[in-house]
């Protein structure tokens, strides 16, 4: 198997062919913030939190999303520069500005990856005007609910349902700020003919957008590691605790 040697944050690391910068970094104890990435699912580069700077020949750097960029021979990568810190902060603020996030009354309060990301990126207020779109809440499914106010369009639900459950109930409709996750061909979730009610999308969701019916403030704890457990059991026959 071919192996690449590269530098991440002044540290020499090796990466197997096909590994991403994110995988190479995490195997070497270098952590890069991520939101749309979830162990067990494919990567799509939706959130851009994992941006890193890659040196280019002749000087300067280019930005690359670590979760979807292959590690290559002699790459020189920085994961934590002032520029990256500022961009990550902007991304988090824009996510808050795009929908309606009210942590104090949210089902995911204290168990939310977006809320945590704000803490880790030093976001103590949002510099942009809130868009305050009118968003629906779909409570038609007997067991689960969807609140578009909290959705960050990471598409983890889409990938979990497609790749792990094999149902492909979810997709994304619309463009720009009008993008919305939809079930079937934009039918109410409860009327979906493909949904098996397995709950994998709910497990995957980083925010309070997908939840168990009857959860109230702070009660929704997503079991996000269950998906990688299932995938490893299936594909590698590894049943980790």
């Amino acid at each position: 198997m071919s192996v690449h040697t590269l530098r991440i944050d002044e540290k020499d690391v090796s990466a197997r062919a096909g590994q991403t910068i994110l995988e190479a970094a995490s195997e070497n104890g270098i952590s890069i913030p991520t939101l749309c990435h979830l162990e067990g699912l494919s990567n799509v580069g939706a959130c851009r939190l994992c941006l890193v700077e890659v040196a280019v020949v002749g000087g300067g750097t280019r930005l690359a999303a670590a979760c979807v960029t292959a590690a290559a021979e002699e790459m020189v990568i920085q994961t934590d520069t002032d520029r990256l810190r500022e961009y990550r902060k902007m991304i988090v603020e824009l996510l808050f500005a795009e929908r309606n996030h009210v942590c104090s009354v949210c089902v995911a309060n204290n168990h939310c990856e977006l809320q945590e990301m704000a803490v880790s990126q030093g976001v103590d207020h949002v510099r942009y005007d809130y868009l305050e779109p009118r968003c629906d809440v779909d409570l038609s499914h007997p067991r689960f609910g969807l609140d578009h106010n909290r959705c960050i369009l990471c598409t983890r639900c889409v990938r979990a349902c497609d790749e792990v459950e094999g149902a492909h109930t979810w997709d994304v409709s619309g463009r720009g700020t009008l993008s919305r996750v939809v079930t079937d061909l934009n039918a109410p979730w409860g009327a979906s003919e493909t949904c098996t009610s397995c709950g994998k999308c709910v497990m995957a969701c980083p925010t309070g957008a997908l939840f168990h019916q009857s959860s109230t403030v702070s009660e929704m704890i997503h079991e996000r590691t269950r998906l990688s457990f299932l995938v490893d059991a299936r594909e590698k026959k590894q049943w980790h605790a």
Partner: protein
Amino acid sequence: MARLRLATVWLGGCSGCHMSFLDLDEFLMDLADRVDVVYSPVVDAKEYPEGVDLVLVEGAVANEDNLAMIRRVRERTRILVSFGDCAVTGNVTALRNPIGGSDGVLRRSFVEQTDRDPQIPFAPGVLPVLLDRVTPVHSVVSVDLYLPGCPPPAPRIRAVLEQLLDGRPARLAGREIKFG
């Protein structure tokens, strides 16, 4: 050292942040030794005075009274702290924004949600006129420090006050900036 002139202001919020302030318990005694509370819902002062050193502003800017007040507060205060999630993000007070302007909001609350005598209250000079959009404090005036939380826990408030009382530039470390 001269005693610090402290004020607290209550805009569009539920008073929970002020309750959390009162949860400072015995630290309130230390505070009383070091500051003069020159304006606050808990003291009897009608006018927001000139020359305030430090103000904690609870609540979002939701009506015309809030707007006039926060502008006066900014003019007359050295350090303005956005105190709690409603001041910092709009939070619960801003939940009405997606419904649309003040007309839509009033109609929703006083006409659509009732089956008896639907009417929109109108009492100029008595009831402050709602703004079309609820905004966080920093979208109207400049803010010197953000103290998030719904409400901010008392130790978080204390940390900020202690730094400012010692004349240090205040900063909330690590997890202390969490919303919610």
